[in-house]
């Protein structure tokens, strides 16, 4: 029977073992706490693909009394060749009872053949407890790798060197892995380096890496579909209110507009929740930032959002001119060029002017007559040509931040202006034109599945380029 390659994550209490697991598993439901001893029992994490378990990680409680354990081992050592047997004897004697319950819990899977991932905090200097832990792990004789996980800012520049100097004596491989900042490529790199620790697990790890890459593509596609659906929904959204024939329309206009804007904000917020869920960020909360401080969490309709995101005024107008000229060109074509390109010229001017004036108003409010008397006040759909670009930019930037966020990192999302790379402004002209066509069609009720499919594909390509 083929056994599943297993890695036991060990270390002193509160050294970020669970953080490493959380980031490797891309799941923020892994319990992480600054309170020591959050992990009381071994927790097994299995990477599964197509119903098969490829690798297994065991999150352990951590060493509580490493010096005492080492002292016991030393006291019972008969010769250096029998060290593993001494560790086995230790576990046998203390399993489930007494003061070494947690040490036994973490040593048991190692003695059953698991490889060791020893996690240390690279921001603090090594203490004697670490020396004792390293000795104990070496005594087990299992393949082992050390991970330097700086949980805070290092105390000084030499801290990591101090660790490396000590770890070198006990471990086959040493890597620095900041679980709170590791993005997807670093996560894969860590899995690749596990191959070097346990050669027998290489094939399973290769399959695991393949599965994770496939999973990543799946997540991207899911996010693209969610963003496309949201964009479609937001572009087609309308709000209506039936009014009596003699009702004061102006009194109802503003409340209806507020409802409309709230519905748009809500749609974006739900889109974000769904993306968070796709990427396994179940516990992360996106909170509203102070206006102008954080573009990603700033209000959708804030001035800073609208000035820094979306297309530039020139890009918008040139897109309008191109679309108008193309429409006018059809007229020129239909009269066999007898119009001397007047159609294109007029179309271009009208298209540009439409963008110029249309970009000052999000959506039009219309008063419609009702068949049974009365009035119908309707707002929407969105007519501002900039709006879909803003939504697209915010969605893609949000995705970028989420897709690369380590799952051990808990707290609020921030996107400083310095991080900002405007997605739509930097897009190729051809891609921008394709997006423009989609947006134009989707704004109208005649939008077809084909339009939506095209939009999904365009967005998927944008996410893939990141």
């Amino acid at each position, binding site marked *: 029977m083929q056994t599943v390659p297993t890695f036991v994550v060990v270390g*002193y*209490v509160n050294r970020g073992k669970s953080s490493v697991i959380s980031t490797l*598993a891309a799941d923020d439901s*892994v*319990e992480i706490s*600054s*309170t*020591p*001893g*959050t992990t*009381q029992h071994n*927790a*097994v*994490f*299995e990477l*599964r*693909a*197509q*119903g098969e378990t490829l690798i297994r990680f065991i999150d352990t409680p951590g060493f*509580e*009394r490493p*010096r*005492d354990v080492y*002292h016991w081992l030393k006291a019972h050592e008969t010769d250096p060749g029998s060290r593993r047997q001494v560790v086995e004897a230790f576990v046998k004697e203390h399993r489930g009872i007494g*003061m070494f319950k947690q040490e036994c819990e973490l040593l048991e899977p190692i003695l059953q053949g698991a490889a060791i991932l020893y996690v240390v*905090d690279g921001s*603090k*200097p090594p*203490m*004697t407890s670490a*020396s*004792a832990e390293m000795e104990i792990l070496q005594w087990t004789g299992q393949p082992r790798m050390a991970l330097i996980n700086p949980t*805070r800012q290092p*105390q*000084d520049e030499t801290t990591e060197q101090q660790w490396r100097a000590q770890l070198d004596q006990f471990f086959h491989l040493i890597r620095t892995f900041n679980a709170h900042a590791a993005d997807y490529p670093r996560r894969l790199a860590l899995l690749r380096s596990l191959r070097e620790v346990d050669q027998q697990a290489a094939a399973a790890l290769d399959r695991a890496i393949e599965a994770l890459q496939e*999973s990543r*593509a*799946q*997540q991207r*596609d*899911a996010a*693209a*579909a*969610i963003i496309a*659906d949201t964009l*479609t929904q937001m572009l*087609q959204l309308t709000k209506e209110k039936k009014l009596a024939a003699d009702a004061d329309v102006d009194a109802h206009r503003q409340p209806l507009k507020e409802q409309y804007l709230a519905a748009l904000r809500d749609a974006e917020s*739900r889109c974000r*929740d*769904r993306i*968070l869920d*796709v990427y396994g960020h179940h516990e992360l909360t996106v909170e509203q930032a102070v206006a102008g401080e954080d573009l990603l969490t700033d209000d959708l309709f804030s001035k800073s959002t609208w000035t820094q995101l979306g297309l530039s005024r020139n890009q918008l107008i040139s897109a309008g001119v191109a679309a108008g000229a193309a429409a006018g060109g*059809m007229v020129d074509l239909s009269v066999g060029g007898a119009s001397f390109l007047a159609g294109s010229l007029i179309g271009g001017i009208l298209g540009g002017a439409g963008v110029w004036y249309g970009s000052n108003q999000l959506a039009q409010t219309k008063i419609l007559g009702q068949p049974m008397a009365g009035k119908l006040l309707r707002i929407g759909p969105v007519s501002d040509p900039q709006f879909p670009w803003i939504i697209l930019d915010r969605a893609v930037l949000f995705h970028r931040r989420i897709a690369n966020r380590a799952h051990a990192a808990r707290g609020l999302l921030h996107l400083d202006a310095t991080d900002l790379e405007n997605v739509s402004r930097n897009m190729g002209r051809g891609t921008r034109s394709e997006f423009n066509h989609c947006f134009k069609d989707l704004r109208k*009720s*005649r939008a*077809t*599945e084909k339009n*939506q*499919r095209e939009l*999904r594909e365009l967005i998927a390509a944008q996410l893939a380029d990141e």
Partner: protein
Amino acid sequence: MGTRMRRIRFADVIDLEVQLARDESEASQAKLRLRDREIANRINAEDRQEPGLSLRWLDEMRKADGELPGQRVEGACRALGGALVVLGLLLGFGLVWGWLTLDQSQPVNVIHFWSVTVGLPAGLFVLWVVGLVLRQLPWFSRWAGPMSSAIPELLQWMLAKRFSQWRQWLAAAGGASKRTRTAWLWMVHTLTQRFALAFGIGAVAALVAAFYLTDPAFGWRSRLMDTQQLHRVVSAITWPWASVMPSATLTEVQIEQTQYSSMGERFADVQAGRGQAGHATWAMWWPMVLMSMVVYVLLPRAAAVVGTSWALKRAAARAFDPLRLAPLRQRLAPAAEFRTSAKYDHKHIIAQTQQAPQAALQNIAGQRCHVLQWTGLGITRQQVAAHLQQRFALQVDTHAEVGQLDPDADAQAMHAATQGKDEAEPVMVIVPAWEPPTSEYRDFLAGLRKIAGERRPIEVLLYEQHAGEPEQVNAEDQRTWQQMVRSMGDAYLSVLPFVEEA
């Protein structure tokens, strides 16, 4: 073994839209994930390829929620289709039977009869095909789009009148019906083509029945064409089968023989019984008419029925666009996922009980103290002595390092610091603040209390450093240590940062 994937039906498209619309409005993503994970557990690994996976998911959703309207709507469409087929049969049969049997005083003018029963349906068919081809052109699609969606919307309106569930869905799903517009359009085409085929079948059946039962006479008269011209037209019409069925075409002579005038003289001659040959002459047209109806009406419409059914299936399959269903698939069958087989125990080592009064460092100024310093802190004895003098006005009497690899050395240091010393002289234990207060530290403090006596003040000083210099302690670390020390319930044990808080 995996079950064979069933075909995608129209009902699946409707239910998919309804369920996706509901899921979109669900506030809790966790709830959806949990629900879909449970469903995924019931689906075999072999069935996890699209679109089988989404279909299985829909089946499970239907089992769980009988409210999904797809099957009822599809049933209604099927019933409507059945009604249209019956109507088509009756209309086709009634029209032809009536034409051929109600007035037999004159021959049936084959030009008129052919035009109505073959020419008109064939023309309508050509228009339909041209319309389909033109729809592929974007400009035509934009122009005709609202019109082409009018009939599907009318059908949806009728269904909304009939089914309250459908009405609810239209309200809940909002624009979702637009996403299935193509499927709806092909559903309407399927219904209309079935009607047209049934009409043709009814017409053919009536023609055959009338021929055998009432023996109608076919002739022709026209001021627009002469015999030669009509022969050319007939030759063109019968060209597809002329070589294999010569009896279903007519020669110029035969055409000439079946011409009659409005005066009805020749017909009168036949009526008078001018012989068997004459009778056969008037029956020469019907095989040609019959073949025309089969070739130009029935076969194209049969092909249209097959084609529209195929297009409906294709549109239905396209509604299951893998990219669109990617979020669902990601929930149901992630390419890779981590699963935990054990739950975390949230009980913390440090129980927050026994809040003890903090009496350790009261009235100690000017006294002597004994320092136990954790090894590896990187601070010298002189630095410690100077700091304690400055901060607490304490004089360091003894100083020892603890926490070395051999735990027995700790006990010796504790004895040295406390044995024979005044019980009022405090013991200052300097520990690394960044180290979590594990059982090892707890054991150490408990052991020290035993050796030092019940009332000797013990002060845990949390040491933090940056670039080799003492630094303020992180608030979280301090809180953690305080929790541990308080949980020991020792009134003469307390914790303070080595560097005074700013």
